């Protein structure tokens, strides 16, 4: 295992200490509760946004705390959902009197822990709403299963809900907008290499030198198929097809295309992939009016990428364009 860390035991704290040291204007870290909180929280009268999940997906979520996005993030151990105590502490820290929204990626652990935290917060007389993100088309959705995983749409939901909250929108409406993002977004990912959980010390899975995994999750969960490495153009096709069918996306739609690196993917490859996605969408009469290219929801040092499409309307576009200033996402500010 080759990592720039001091030890598997301290990696999360060390990373949080680095984040706090680099961005004191934007965030502060409460090391007792292991939470990242917006520097000037709580913002009186504003809906507070809290998200969280296992660590190892940086910049998600801590890198999105700041102005116009999250008010707090709860990082768990690597790939392990945080505990309700963290979420409760975060909820208390960001409650400015207008209620708090929990943005939860759909994994049993995240869902259950946030659920308990919401119950505790409500017992505290804090108004809490929850939205679960489940955009990963690699997993079959069904009423009788744990359902689809939450992946790339989380970043978009946090940005858009964050902009709505910053504009003074009330809790239920912010939650509705967050749900609207989730309803209109679909994602699919792939991996060229495995990742190594620091505490485990060895790769989560093995892939041959000429193999890739299509439909991978952000914790190295197995995907739909393992197959021989293919050119970027074919990979783009394999990732986009199930997304386009699922919603479905149609000719005439306007979308935000988010091409995401898994942590070990260089930018040159993400732009090669963006080019292929743009070509395919153009051929289908779908217009990309906004895009995001970079590594924003990662899986440690895994090489690979994911693509997320979000169907846009004027409302979502305006909220996407609104100013944001966080360690990892910044514009118009």
């Amino acid at each position, binding site marked *: 295992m080759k990592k720039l860390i001091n030890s598997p035991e301290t990696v999360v704290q060390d990373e949080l200490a680095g984040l706090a040291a680099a961005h004191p204007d934007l965030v502060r870290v409460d090391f007792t509760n292991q939470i990242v909180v917006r520097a000037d929280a709580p913002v009186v009268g504003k809906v507070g946004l809290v998200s969280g999940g296992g660590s190892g997906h940086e910049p998600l979520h801590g890198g999105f705390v700041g102005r116009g996005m999250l008010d707090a993030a709860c990082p768990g*151990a690597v*790939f392990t959902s945080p*505990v309700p105590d963290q979420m409760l502490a975060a909820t208390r820290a960001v409650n400015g009197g207008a209620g708090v929204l929990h943005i939860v990626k759909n994994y049993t*652990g995240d869902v259950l822990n946030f659920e308990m935290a919401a119950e505790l917060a409500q017992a505290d007389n804090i108004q809490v709403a929850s939205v679960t993100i489940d955009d990963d088309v690699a997993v079959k959705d069904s009423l009788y299963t*744990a359902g689809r995983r939450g992946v790339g749409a989380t970043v978009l939901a946090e940005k858009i809900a964050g902009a709505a909250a910053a504009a003074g929108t009330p809790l239920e409406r912010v939650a509705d907008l967050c749900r609207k993002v989730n309803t209109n977004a679909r994602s699919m990912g792939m991996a060229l290499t495995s990742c190594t959980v620091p505490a485990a010390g060895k790769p989560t899975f093995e892939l041959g030198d000429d193999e890739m995994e299509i439909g991978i999750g952000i914790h*190295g*969960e197995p995907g739909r198929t393992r197959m021989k490495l293919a050119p970027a153009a074919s990979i783009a096709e394999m990732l986009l097809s199930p997304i386009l069918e699922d919603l479905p996306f149609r000719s005439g739609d306007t979308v935000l295309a988010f091409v995401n690196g898994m942590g070990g993917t260089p930018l040159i490859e993400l732009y090669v992939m963006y080019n292929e996605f743009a070509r395919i969408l153009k051929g289908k009469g779908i217009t990309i009016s906004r895009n995001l290219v970079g590594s924003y929801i990662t899986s440690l040092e895994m090489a690979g990428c994911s693509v997320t499409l979000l169907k846009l309307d004027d409302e979502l576009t305006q909220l996407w364009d609104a100013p944001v200033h966080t360690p990892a996402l910044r514009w118009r500010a």
Partner: protein
Amino acid sequence: MAADRVCILAWLRRSAEVLHEQRDYLTTLDAAIGDADHGINMDRGFTAVMDKLPSVAEADIGTILKTVGTTLVSTVGGASGPLYGTAFLRAGTALAGRQELQPADIVTGLEAALEGIKARGHAQVGEKTMVDALSPAVEALKVAVASGESLEEALYAAGAAAEAGMQATIPLVATKGRASYLGERSADHQDPGATSVTLLLRAALNGK
């Protein structure tokens, strides 16, 4: 033949030992169909429980169990944290104020625990989760106690039923938790949560 606070504390200590010993085994099971942390999670949680127990060593059994529940909720994370946490919290609530448990009380406590897990996790028998071990264990315990068997015999029956339920998870296709992402590929693997349930119940016998 009843179980007093000392028995309960001994069981918890033995559970912590067993989970620590079986940490890698549980994690390996979780690696096959989950994310390779169940043993790490449970060991972290019960290590915290051990640290916490001295502060409630003189309390009633309900308080002890609730303390175990809140400690697990606060330290385990993942799916198993809220599930085991809720189980212990519900059992503790059902047994609030008790200094000693009769066999029937143990049935009450374990039933409350099972209901807590099912309510929290929305899982039924057959979904390849801890419910598949705990549910038959509660049934077996109930039957044994009703037919007047000794506590030891009843706990033995519960442990054996849990183990059978755990074995029965092997062919199942998971429809809850992380393993459900695997669909058909989750078959042929033993569920880690059903395994930790079995270990905990088996520890009740050794701990007596």
